């Protein structure tokens, strides 16, 4: 190795500099993505301290990782006589790198999970219109029974014509098909998921039976509603299939009130609510379905 000419060493140094440049670019790119995730959270709703730390953590780790990658791992390719000593150091440094990036990864995963709406503990002025309990299609009888009988075959998810049934991403209910009403509601005359369910997790029912099953009840969130901003709206009342919502005069505004004894939790109000990004009316699921 002593025979390496000065020129060869210079060439080697140059190419490794090029490599380190591109690695630096990639690392900065990754850092920017992470930064965007943080900013995205800020734009949607103010972060709690917990979120901020999580992303700061990720950013710091990636920064350290990129610095490490740039200066130690790549530029470590020195002549062999120092190789043995460097190998030991390399191994521990590589270990540090792997640990730090794996921690960064998990906190990023956590960040992504949070961004997708799982597990957000909103300490915000606007309440998060997300049901405390999972919402199950009519025929599920109760969450306990549903979870017990469902084999997560996915037939109901495929069968749902409105694509409102999707596998849960929550750790404790992994892949269990749950209803989400942000982009669609459950029509009274559709029982496709019940038809295809082979295990009895969703019992065979008819649309007539469905009118007598309450899977949840609607809840109105005043601070999210556009009527308090002097934009008269009665969309929820309009779309409610069984007349469970009526508008009443409250002070200056016409606000919706829900007859929770009648509401079957179909989600039409939530799906059609024009308030954005947070819905002003949403369905809270019943853990045990009720007779109306």
């Amino acid at each position, binding site marked *: 190795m002593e025979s390496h000419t000065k020129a060869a060493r210079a060439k080697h140094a140059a190419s490794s500099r090029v490599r380190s440049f591109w690695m630096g670019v990639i690392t900065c790119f990754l850092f920017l993505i992470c930064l965007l995730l943080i900013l995205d959270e800020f734009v949607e709703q103010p972060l709690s301290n917990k979120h901020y730390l999580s992303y700061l953590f990720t950013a710091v780790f990636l920064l350290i990782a990129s610095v490490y990658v740039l200066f130690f791992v790549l530029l470590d390719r020195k002549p062999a006589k120092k190789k043995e000593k460097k190998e030991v150091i390399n191994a521990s440094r590589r270990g540090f790198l792997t*640990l730090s990036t794996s921690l960064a990864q*998990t906190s990023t995963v956590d960040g992504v999970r949070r961004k997708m709406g799982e*597990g957000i*503990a909103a300490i915000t002025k606007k309440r998060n219109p997300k049901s*405390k309990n999972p919402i199950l299609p009519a025929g599920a009888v109760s969450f306990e029974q549903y979870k017990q009988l469902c084999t997560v075959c996915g037939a109901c998810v495929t069968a749902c014509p409105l694509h409102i049934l999707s596998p849960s991403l929550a750790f404790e209910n992994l892949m269990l098909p749950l209803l989400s009403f942000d982009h669609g509601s459950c029509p009274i005359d559709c029982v496709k998921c019940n038809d295809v369910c082979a295990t009895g997790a969703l019992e065979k029912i008819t649309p*007539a039976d469905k009118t*007598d099953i309450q899977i949840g009840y609607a809840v109105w969130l005043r601070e999210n509603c556009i009527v308090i901003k002097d934009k008269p709206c009665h969309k929820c009342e309009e779309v409610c299939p*069984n007349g469970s919502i009526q508008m009443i005069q409250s002070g200056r505004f016409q606000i919706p009130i829900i007859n929770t004894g009648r509401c079957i939790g179909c989600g039409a109000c939530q799906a059609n609510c024009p308030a954005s990004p947070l819905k002003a009316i949403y369905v809270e699921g019943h*853990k045990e379905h009720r007779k109306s």
Partner: protein
Amino acid sequence: MSSKNTMKRRDFLKIIGVGTAAVSSVAYTKASEKAPFGMKAFLSPEGTPQMTMRTDAAGEKISLLGYGGMRWPTKQTGGNTRGEIIDQDKVNGLIEYAMKHGINYYDTAPVYHGGQSEHAMGIALSNYPRESFHIATKLSNFDASKWTLENAKEIYENSFKQLGVNYIDFYLLHSVGPGKDSFDQRFVNNGILDFLVSERQKGKIKHLGFSFHGDRESFLHALNSNIKWDFVQIQLNYFDWTQDADNKPSASYMYEELVNRHLPVVVMEPLLGGRLAKLNDKILAELKKRDPELSPASWAFRFVGSLPGVLTTLSGMTYMEHLKEDITVFSPLKAVTDADKNFLQETAVAMMKYPVIPCTGCRYCMPCPFGLDIPANFAYFNKCLEAGNIPASKQSANYVKAREAFLGNFSKSVREKKQSIHCTACGHCLPLCPQHIKIPDQMKRINTLVQNLKNNTL
């Protein structure tokens, strides 16, 4: 070479270890259980609100919200027995939550859930120190052919066994009914009351009282008997407050009478069997105009809880959501103003215009000798009535069609053999109904409705 491998293995273990730690730490950062949204009172954190307590004659603190044991959740599986067997796990969970949030009065009776209520509650409450809760149970000797002391003793002793306790805090004569003669025959002449008074002296019963569903005459007769009562349980809510008739005195009359005699009042049916929690649209609108964030049930509870003579209010909370909501209303209870009371009286008057069958689902009328499921028939009728009251313009065409298909088929709600058509007006159920419903007449009404639905003349 070997040193490289050793390093690699150690690295591998380090990575796995740290990775697992990182992932599991992430998985456990879950939001703590939050109360459901939409309830004004829920915005305070759990654990800090205090249950309102009342003091009984012996100086003991009793929670203003008591747990009624007539409406426990039942298992929804099991084919033929669906809805008939109490779900013990759910009962345990509900009672655990109730105990944690200050409820210490638990009411049951041998007839509730066909005997299962006492048993299930006994099991659930056995997890707590005996002094931390008060049990109330009753002498349910309804069978007129068995109004003997021996039969009463059997029922009495069985209660102790089912509940698994050595003493009963509150023991009641179950549902003192119309007619003063029946009171004497049922409890006095056969020595039952004397027996119970001696049990109270021995300390096996702490407080002796009676629950009441009768007429004015029997009410006064029971009160004026030379028994020193410790408390009386009456049906009290803003709907029954002023409705007065000789065969069913108003709640205000009974309440005043008891307060004058210094008898603590235990309240049952604060929600009138759920009817005051599920109001029809017009009445609901009025309530919500007064305060959009208060639920109908909270109004009813606050009305009852505001009365100073009330010791506890029994609510049969089937679901955890009901339990949580009710606890919040009572922790602490915000009294109603006089203006609120007048408003609720107007509401009661408005409600009287709707000819629903006032069944509370207590099932005292069951079993019917001809196999009718009386409460189910009544529930079906009330649903049809409700469906008729909502204008079709407010509903989607698909829903109207589906609902008609449901209600048009009587058998979807009540099994063939149990339908109203089999009623022979034998009258066996009449004296048993605490709401004084003329059951055979109502069955005729249902028959007419079903006939009209078949002929499509509704």
